[in-house]
């Protein structure tokens, strides 16, 4: 009977083309607006590294000694001091662990007559690349020796390689950062990681920084860009020298670690607790001992990575969808009122109420499906518009995946039937004897 009902639905749509068009467009507009905002929100909430996010942890220690009672707070800042970061990096419990910071500097290819451009540079350590399974087009990441020796090496993104070396294999070539020359050791392939959980919260949805260089090199070159990192000092540095800053209680470095299993996690937690007690015995960590290994999902939740605005936009769009559907419901009433004669005839020749309910439900499902298809097209247009409007955000945020496409069509069909329930029930309760004369 389903195919018969679909055939009847198509005939019915042709019978009242304007009404059907309005119904489809109302559903399409509501679905389009909702799915545009929902897609962005959904993509923002995605697990950035599904293959190993359960084993990746933000290493957090509370080194504050300002005397303030923070016991009401279970969360602590994800940044730590330089001295703590260097001490924790010595642990061999994690499979990988990488420090994370950033600088901004001028960049140019010294072999080309080209003006220098300002670029953000991710400073990190060798484990960053294997830990996040970063794909390479040419070469590879630097090794631990480069970290230890603060070597002047860089890894470029594919886009940066295109910009500075016209996309050619640039391994072994020099790139000028500031006044110094750095040797290119690796070029990334296309790399999608959204949200970019490892860096600063305000840059989670932007493209990865163009250039990567060893953190140790940043420190040895004494390059700091405070606008790209969160610096918090509960006690000022002793003087303005770099050495004093590095020895200070200012927190500004993030550490991410990969712990292969629960046993390793417990071992590393114990290592952190012992370290904190050791530091407390030396007069630091005066407030409390609180060390945390925060998983990626928990980190994204605690740091409220998905903006509230985005969630509100989804709710507003959902309200708009409901308004569209309520209007559509009125049109459905009119449509089924016009079918009272046919309903009466079908009942007279033997259709039960269930038959009519099924027939009309399929008709609305067809309307909903077509509305969903048009809604998808409108959502696609909306996402293109948002991509242009928010060009600084990662373009993958504005792309629907197969799951969203299927969910959109299913949503359109289901809501059409749900909001059509009253018109359908009303139409199925025809007064047979009176409606037979209205065909």
């Amino acid at each position: 009977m389903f195919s018969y009902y679909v055939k009847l639905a198509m005939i019915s749509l042709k019978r009242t083309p304007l009404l059907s068009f309005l119904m489809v467009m109302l559903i399409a507009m509501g679905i389009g607006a909702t799915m545009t905002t929902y897609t962005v929100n959904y993509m923002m909430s995605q697990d950035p590294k599904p293959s190993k996010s359960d084993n990746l942890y933000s290493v957090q220690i509370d080194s504050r000694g300002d005397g303030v009672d923070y016991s009401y707070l279970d969360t602590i800042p994800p940044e730590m001091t330089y001295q703590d970061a260097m001490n924790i990096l010595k642990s061999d419990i994690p499979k990988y662990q990488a420090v994370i910071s950033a600088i901004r500097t001028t960049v140019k290819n010294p072999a080309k007559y080209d003006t220098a451009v300002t670029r953000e540079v991710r400073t990190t350590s060798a484990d960053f690349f294997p830990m996040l399974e970063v794909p390479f087009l040419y070469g590879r990441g630097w090794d631990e020796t480069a970290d230890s020796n603060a070597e002047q090496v860089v890894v470029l993104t594919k886009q940066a390689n295109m910009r500075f070396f016209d996309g050619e294999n640039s391994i072994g070539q020099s790139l000028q950062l500031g006044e110094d020359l750095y040797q290119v050791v690796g070029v990334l392939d296309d790399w999608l990681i959204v949200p970019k959980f490892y860096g600063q919260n305000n840059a989670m949805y932007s493209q990865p920084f163009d250039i990567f260089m060893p953190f140790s090199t940043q420190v040895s070159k004494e390059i700091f860009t405070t606008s790209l990192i969160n610096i918090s000092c509960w006690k000022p540095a002793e003087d303005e020298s770099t050495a004093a800053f590095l020895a200070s209680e200012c927190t500004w470095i993030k550490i991410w670690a990969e712990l292969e299993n629960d046993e390793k996690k417990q071992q590393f937690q114990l290592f952190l607790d012992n370290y904190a007690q050791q530091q407390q015995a030396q007069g630091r960590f005066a407030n409390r001992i609180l060390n945390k290994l925060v998983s990626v999902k928990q980190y994204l939740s605690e740091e409220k990575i998905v903006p509230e605005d985005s969630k509100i936009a989804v709710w507003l769009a959902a309200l708009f969808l409901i308004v569209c559907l309520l209007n559509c419901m009125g049109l459905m009433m009119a449509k089924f009122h016009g079918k009272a004669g046919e309903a009466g005839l079908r009942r007279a020749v033997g259709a039960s109420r269930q038959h009519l309910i099924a027939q009309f439900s399929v008709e609305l499902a067809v309307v909903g499906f077509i509305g969903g298809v048009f809604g998808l097209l409108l959502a696609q247009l909306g996402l293109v518009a948002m991509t242009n409007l928010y060009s600084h955000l990662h373009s993958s945020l504005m792309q629907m995946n197969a799951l969203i496409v299927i969910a959109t069509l299913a949503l359109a069909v289901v809501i059409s039937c749900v909001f059509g329930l009253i018109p359908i029930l009303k139409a199925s309760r025809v007064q047979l004897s009176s409606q037979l004369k209205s065909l």
Partner: protein
Amino acid sequence: MTGLAKAYITSDIKTQALQPFDLAIGQGEFVSVIGPSGSGKTTFLNIAGLLENHSEGLYELDGQDVSKMSDKQKSAYRNEKIGFVFQSFNLIPELNLYDNIDMPLRYRKFNTKERDERIMKALEQVGLAGRKNHYPTQLSGGQQQRVAIARAIAGSPRVIFADEPTGNLDSKMAQGIMTLLQDINASGTTIIMVTHDNEQAQLAQRIVQIKDGVLSEESSILTQAIA
């Protein structure tokens, strides 16, 4: 039908559409129901055809008390054992003749082959086999009524209720429809026809008259012939 009556009650007004009456119709009879407009003929036909409920009395169809039937049972009964022919044909204009006749068969869960056979047989019976893909608007009134009759007989019903089947037709077309109904009756199908045309009513074996909601048996052609 024993002591059957129908009253419409709206707030404080009660309108007695049909006064209590007794009537028995046997299998294979051709009964005409006559009376002036507003006398209650169509109400009688709607009750008899299970399109409307009666208010009082007992109505047994095939020995089954219809007041005890559920809505679903009544639908199934209408589908399997009753055929309707309406004055205004009641064909769906967007469906071709084949699909119009197919409509009741769809609810009968016949397979495609059986539906096809029944539709073609019904179309042949009404003389429109070559026009199965035509739409109702491409046919004359008489042809449309033939399609309605084909729809009514396609399911091999035991009884056909015809409400003014020739009311919208000229005399020549009406004559053809009446002949068709007589042929169908001759094959054993009971026909109960509402009409206000006395001449056509005389073609039936029995005539029941309704006047001001009062039903009375007027005559029986067969009885008169024997007398």
